[in-house]
């Protein structure tokens, strides 16, 4: 079992999904993130707050169709953390595959 470079903030599956979206778009709206993560509004709010508190995500309110919506964007710190977390996940899988191959 390896723990190298895994990021505790990005560890929960919903946060990893949010990060995967934000790593590929400039900004994502709350409803879109809820649709992708398939969690409730309150759970998504908590995940976004945790990501914002860690400095990984920037949140802003903006009008769309006459309603205020929440938009989330990755910060540079978030991008870097996500890249590191993904590298750690791949390293875990690769080391397991190498161990199996060596048997």
């Amino acid at each position, binding site marked *: 079992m390896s723990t190298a470079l895994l990021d505790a903030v990005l560890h929960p599956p919903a946060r990893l*999904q949010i990060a995967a979206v934000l790593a*590929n*778009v400039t900004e994502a709206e709350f409803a879109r993130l809820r649709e992708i993560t398939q969690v409730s509004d309150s759970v998504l709010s908590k995940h976004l707050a945790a990501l914002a508190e860690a400095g990984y995500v920037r949140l802003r309110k903006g009008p769309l169709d006459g309603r205020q919506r929440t938009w989330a964007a990755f910060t540079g710190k978030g991008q870097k953390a996500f890249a590191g977390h993904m590298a750690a996940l*791949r390293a*875990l899988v690769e080391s397991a595959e190498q161990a199996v191959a060596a048997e």
Partner: protein
Amino acid sequence: MPTPMMNSDDARDALAAVDRTRADLASLGLCPPWRHGAFGLVMGMVVLGQGVHAPWMWWLFGASLAGAVVIALHDRRKYGVFVNGYRRGRTRIVALGLVAAMFVAMALEVWLREIGEPLVLRLALAAVFGGVAIWFSVVWNRTFRREMLDHAA
């Protein structure tokens, strides 16, 4: 916060979830044809603006700016995301290619205007560039989609 513990099966599941999310995002690369056309129209207006004198130059500048805003609002409303054309990744080279082509077309428009070529020729150049911009828009979307799906493969 303590570093989480994870075994290789959990890691594989996490990577698969990320791949599924990217595959979801690939649908953003499925723009309707009119969206490409609208982009081409806006870019054509930007170029034509260099081939005419004030006040038409300013009218075209305003119209192209308004068009860009309408397209961005449409994307935000329809997809719930905004993707900067210059984002990091394989699409950046496509975006830079479009910018280079736009500067060439703009310089040609200025030249045609300065040597007094008829308006119809300047309109034709803007129309051709609009077509080029449509092609770039299609290529950009295909490249984005492929990038998302390649990760998910």
